[in-house]
Structures are given as structure tokens and as C-alpha cells.
């Protein structure tokens, strides 16, 4: 199988397949896929249901290198069953975290403390609507396994979340994405728990109009998340940009990376509650009210302007300890 790394670098992250993202995010020629298409490990449940299957079950996992860092890559494919986590792809994802931890422990044993320039990291490119419900509880089990593994990785192995593909990170994957140490996004990134259609269906059109694209993007889109502090870095839409940012993060110390965290300590819970408090006090009915509260002007222009300009003028919510 051929994959032109040079060509991938300039390619849009948004338009790339899961495999292209996985190959392009690490150094040239270093990516090794685990359980790739040739292993033909696909979902037995979908076969019984008469639904189409894919040889990699909609996820590309493997290991590559950035300089001397082993990089464990998980890359989801949103075009196959909405990128949703089932039994096979869920297990593949959860095991990558476990392998990363094993790698860390093995290095600890060998070197005493893991050398800064060799510390392993996990990079996850999200493109998922959540859990594959037609596989019963298998996807939820995989989700909880991921969360457990993430807890064990905390303060040991940096875990970088990327959202920049068509589906974003929703449902159970929204959790996992925000549990990462650092969250990267391009303008197409989206993070949420419940998707627009489900909100409309459950609470009504007055609460959330799922046909209003602008409303969706200014509520769940990367720019809004960037202003509110959920997305740490907003990047240009090429694989190269993401690779370089991951490289930059890989060279930071673990304690520096941990400062980006959004969840996982009492302080951070309080920080998040502050935002809820502000929202309640302002009685906001649109995320733009929050943008304004944090000092932004030209509210109508912000979602439209070129990214470079946006990064210059956007004022972000100050976060504790960052």
C-alpha cells in the first residue's frame, strides 16, 4: 500500500481519511498500523444486521515516531457508521492507551525516569458521533475502558485530542476528547455531548433549531470553544500544521502540558463551574453573549473572518492556572 507523506502534509486535515491523518501526523515513513485492513478484523454484529462492514472497523490505530518520541496514534473514520465506537474499534482504541502506558512503564524500568526527549505520547484524531448503539453495550464498555486508561495515563503520557474532521467529537467521544491533556482544532472542529438533531428532538425547536447551521457552529464549533477555553490551539487546516503543533507539545515537559487540562482536578471543576455561574447570571440565550462578556466586539464578524485575523482579535475566557 502506498501513502505519499509529502503530499499528505499540504492536504486539508478536514478532507483527509483516517488513514491519511494517521500517516501524516508522525514523521515520514514511521507509521506502523496495528490490525490494519489486511487483518480483516471487522464487526461480526454488523454482518448479522446486514449492514456494511469495513476491514479496519472504522478506526486506524498504530504507532509512529516524532523525533525520538514514540507516538501512539488513534484516528477515527467518520464516514463509516458515523465513526461510532463498537466492539472491535472500541477495543482497538482502548488498547492503544494501554499499550502507551506499557511503553511508558517499560521505559521507566529501563531508564529509571523516562527521558524528556523520548517520552511516549498519545494522539487521537476524533471523528465520531459517539457509540454504535446497534452493537448493544459493547461501545459503552469500550468508552469506559478508554476513560479508565486515560486516568492511568494522567501525568505520565501526554494525551493530545484533535478535532478537525466532518463529524467532530460527539456523544461518548466528546467526553474522551475533552479528557485529553491538550485539545487541538481547526475551524471545522466541533465538540459536544448531544448533537443538534437530538437536542431539537428532545427539547424542541425553540430550544435549539438543528437546521440553523450558524447556530450550531457558534454553539459547538471550534471558534466558540476556543474563546471559552475548551480548545487550546486553533490551527490552520493542513495535516502539517497539526503535526508541527504535536511536535511542539512533545518537547514540552509533562507538567507544562498538564496545565492545559480541562478536567481531572477540583480546581478545574471549580473553573468550569465559574463558567456555568456566569452563564446563569447573564441569563444567556446565545453563546455570543458569552463572547461579549469576555470582551469580544464585532460579534457578527468573528465567525466569518479569516482564521489569522480571528486569532489576533479574539479575546478568550481567562482560565485558572493557565
Amino acid at each position, binding site marked *: *500500500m*502506498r501513502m505519499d507523506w509529502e503530499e499528505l502534509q499540504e492536504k486539508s486535515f478536514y478532507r483527509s481519511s483516517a488513514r491519511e491523518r494517521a500517516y501524516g501526523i508522525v514523521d515520514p515513513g514511521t507509521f506502523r498500523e496495528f490490525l490494519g*485492513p489486511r487483518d480483516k478484523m471487522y464487526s461480526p454484529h454488523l454482518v448479522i*444486521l446486514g449492514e*456494511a*462492514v*469495513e476491514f479496519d472497523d472504522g478506526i486506524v490505530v498504530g504507532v509512529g515516531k516524532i523525533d525520538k518520541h514514540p507516538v501512539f496514534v488513534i484516528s477515527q*473514520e467518520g*464516514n*463509516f457508521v458515523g465513526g461510532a465506537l463498537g466492539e472491535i474499534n472500541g477495543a482497538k482504541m482502548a488498547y492503544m492507551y494501554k499499550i502507551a502506558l506499557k511503553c511508558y512503564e517499560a521505559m521507566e524500568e529501563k531508564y529509571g525516569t523516562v527521558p524528556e526527549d523520548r517520552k511516549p505520547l498519545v494522539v487521537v484524531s476524533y471523528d465520531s458521533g459517539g457509540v454504535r448503539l446497534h452493537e448493544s453495550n459493547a461501545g459503552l464498555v469500550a468508552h469506559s475502558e478508554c476513560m479508565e486508561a486515560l486516568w492511568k495515563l494522567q501525568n505520565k503520557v501526554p494525551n493530545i485530542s484533535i478535532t478537525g474532521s466532518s463529524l467532530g467529537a460527539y456523544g461518548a467521544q466528546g467526553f474522551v476528547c475533552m479528557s485529553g491533556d491538550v485539545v487541538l482544532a481547526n475551524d471545522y472542529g466541533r465538540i459536544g455531548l448531544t448533537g443538534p438533531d437530538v437536542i431539537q428532538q428532545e427539547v424542541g425547536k425553540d430550544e435549539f433549531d438543528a437546521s440553523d447551521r450558524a447556530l450550531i457552529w457558534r454553539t459547538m464549533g471550534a471558534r466558540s470553544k476556543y474563546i471559552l477555553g475548551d480548545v487550546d490551539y486553533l490551527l490552520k487546516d493542513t495535516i502539517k500544521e497539526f503535526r508541527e503543533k504535536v511536535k511542539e507539545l512533545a518537547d514540552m515537559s509533562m507538567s507544562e502540558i498538564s496545565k492545559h487540562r480541562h478536567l481531572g482536578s477540583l480546581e478545574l471543576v471549580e473553573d468550569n463551574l465559574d463558567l456555568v455561574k456566569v452563564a446563569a447570571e447573564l441569563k444567556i440565550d446565545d453563546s455570543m453573549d458569552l463572547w461579549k462578556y469576555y470582551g469580544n466586539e464585532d460579534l457578527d464578524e468573528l465567525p466569518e473572518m479569516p482564521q489569522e485575523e480571528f486569532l489576533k482579535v479574539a479575546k478568550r475566557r481567562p482560565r485558572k492556572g493557565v
Partner: protein
Amino acid sequence: MALTELNFEFTPKEPKELNDEWGHVGIVSSGDLEILIEKGNAYKGKVSFHILTTVVGFDNVWETVLGRLVDKTGLSGVKVSINDNAATPAVVKRRLQQAIENGGGLQ
């Protein structure tokens, strides 16, 4: 209603070998398919297709589209595995060409 399984075998008049060990292309989204081409000694001079599809009753169309392309290109010495989600014949043909390209082309 399980998936439909189809198996075909063709013997091209002028057999040509794939350059690389394997090739892979496509994502199984709606109206699309995934093709995996793998070299194997058991397929010397012929090509074996194994298809899993969601669509029922198009066996003849599959046979015609694949047979024509094998005759035209001379693809041989390989096993071709396909996962299909209701792709049209034009898409099948294009993806197969891309899969050959991804496997380094034919000698």
C-alpha cells in the same frame, strides 16, 4: 437479513502482476466501497474476488463490471476483497482502478 456474499474468479488473456504486495483504497460510506488487493501464490494467472455487499440481486452486474476490468487491465495473481455499501458500477470501476494504482500498478 445478513450481508450478501459473492465470489467470482476470472482468468485474463494477458495476465499482469501487481507491483506491490498489496493495495487498499476506499471507505465504506453510503454509496461507496472499500477494496483490498493482496498478492498470493495461489492465484497465479487468475484473480479471485470476494465481495460482501448490502445489496441483493445484482450478481450479474458485479460479474460484468469486474470481468471487463480484469480483461482490460490483465490484473492477476491477486485476491481482491471488497466491502460494499451500495456503490454504483461506475464507482466500483473507479475504485478498482485506484486500488491497482495504490498497489503500485501492474507490471
